[in-house]
């Protein structure tokens, strides 16, 4: 817990990394059940904290909570800001943005995760 090294000597890791992206939802129905499952599962696969803001309303939802994401009633045309903080933040934001752009891989098979 108590890192005794001088700040300049600490590794440039996790805690300081922040990434942000904005993406418009083009899926016809929006983030209904299955897209929410896919989105939050992908978010949970990253170690960083992930927030989602809907239409710039200033409220950051936990991107790993399907209850929060479903609760936002995200529909076609809504603009999502995805913000990650911590390890692999840039990768997380990129992956999630791509997922939204790809319409949550909806046209692919309903692959089950084991």
């Amino acid at each position, binding site marked *: 817990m108590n890192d005794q090294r001088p700040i300049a000597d600490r590794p440039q890791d996790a805690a300081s990394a922040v990434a942000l992206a904005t993406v418009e939802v083009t899926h016809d*129905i929006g983030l209904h059940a*299955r897209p929410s*499952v896919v989105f*939050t599962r992908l978010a949970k696969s990253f170690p960083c904290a992930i927030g989602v803001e809907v239409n710039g309303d200033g409220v950051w939802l936990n991107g790993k909570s*399907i209850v929060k994401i*479903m*609760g936002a009633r995200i529909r076609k045309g809504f603009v999502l800001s995805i913000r990650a903080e911590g390890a692999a933040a840039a990768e997380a934001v990129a992956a999630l943005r791509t997922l939204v752009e790809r319409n949550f891989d909806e046209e692919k098979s309903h692959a*089950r995760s084991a």
Partner: protein
Amino acid sequence: MPEALRLKGQGASPGIARGPAYVMAPEDGRARGVRANGSDAARLAEAVDRAVEDLRDLAGRSDLESAAILEFQIEMLRDPALLEPSLERMHRGAEAGVAWAATMDAYVASFEEAEDEHIRARGADMMDIRQQVLRALHGERPPDFPQGSILVGRDIAPSLFLSHDWSRGGGIALFGGSVASHVATLARSRGVPMVVGVPSAEIETGMELVVDGDDGVVEDGSAVPASALAAGRASGIPVPIGEPAVAADEFPLSTADGIRLTLQANIDHPSELRHLSPTNVDGIGLFRTEYLMASPADLADEERQVAIYTEMLAWAGGLPVTIRLLDFGADKPPPGEATDPSSFLGLRGIRLLLARPDMLRTQVRALLRAAPAGRLRVLLPMVTAPSEVEQTRAVFAEEAARLSARGVSHAMPPLGLMVEVPAAALMPEAFAAEFFSFGTNDLAQYLSASARDNAAVSPLYAAARAAVLRFLAMTVPLVAATGRSVGICGDLAGDPTALPALLSCGFRDFSMAPRRMTLARAALSRLNADGSEARG
């Protein structure tokens, strides 16, 4: 040879039972259920885990599309955010099942209110999740004991009594208890011999005991020859539950001078309807719903309540069925909670329901939904002030509006007052109730200031009978003056010796345990409407 055990208590339910003792550990009956937030939260978490496991099993056996739907439910259940409002409710005192159901009800409603059809459709998934977790919570059953046992303990919970199968006999011997307790009422209506106020003694599980509910004696069975028992049985054998309460040709009932009376049944459990024919009674005068609730999960299970009430209304055909709102408190704590003897003068009946509206709202919705199936009436227990009826009516109106919004069929039943508190009996015109029904057990308790679960004051409770009858003679005309119907559903109605006085008070509608009906019917048909003897 050691001196044979012979303990003198007080008979609470007649008849003689013989069998091996089952000594109830203190944590078994009502003493169990010290509530800790941690344990409630753990129970709910465990139920959620079990529901998730079941869903995974199911998903593994399902086609891909079904599995995707199940995956959605699994993800919802695994999200800690879903549990948060339940945890908060539990911190404020709600039971796990109640907290969960209330949380999910609000959540389901939030989906159903959505404009977007796809989001509205998810409401059904949420309802599905709600029921799965409740079913997992349901897995917990109260302790039971071998059939045919003589149950020995300080006291016994009504729900334990009702969850036990008494068809192979058995009896009850209590060191505490009271003849006027609800379990005693249950034991009498089921023909289970029971003795209360037994002096404490060393009794071990398995020891042969005889419970003599006529004389109020508990004896070492090995010292009582079977022949003595046979002789005893001649006097006090209980009426078998299966015996028809009323012969069809004696129906309908009227007094010797031709005034029509109604005789309704007090029911504690829907299974009692199997032994009762709707052609021989004028309906159900009192259905005590609290005995349905063996666990907190039962309380929250709206669908189960709808099914039970609907079945009861269907059984009755067009006859009235009076269902009493959950009457918890004092000797009947909500499932999973400890008894609170002080609450005889505290949070009981409607007071408790209004203080903890989650369980009230679930029951109200179930009643509203069942109402179209027959002639439902709803009785409010322990009403003291007019505002309590108004608040309850408001809850009915709110839930009815929600059901309308969801397109769920329902109907508003008439609300009645269970007259148990003297203050309410004296002011009937102040209450916006559609009917009145006197509950004499509690009325006697409050008039005599004698707790009916306290064996030390049970003689005082019994001695108040004359005062209770005079009180009824004074207050029944006050109710009659309001122009609304008035009945009686307390133990007094099933006591043939009280019937002349009750007739002279003005009662025409009686409700009692089914096994009391034969005697009551015979007594009533020999009396004039003013209570005088018709013969001679």
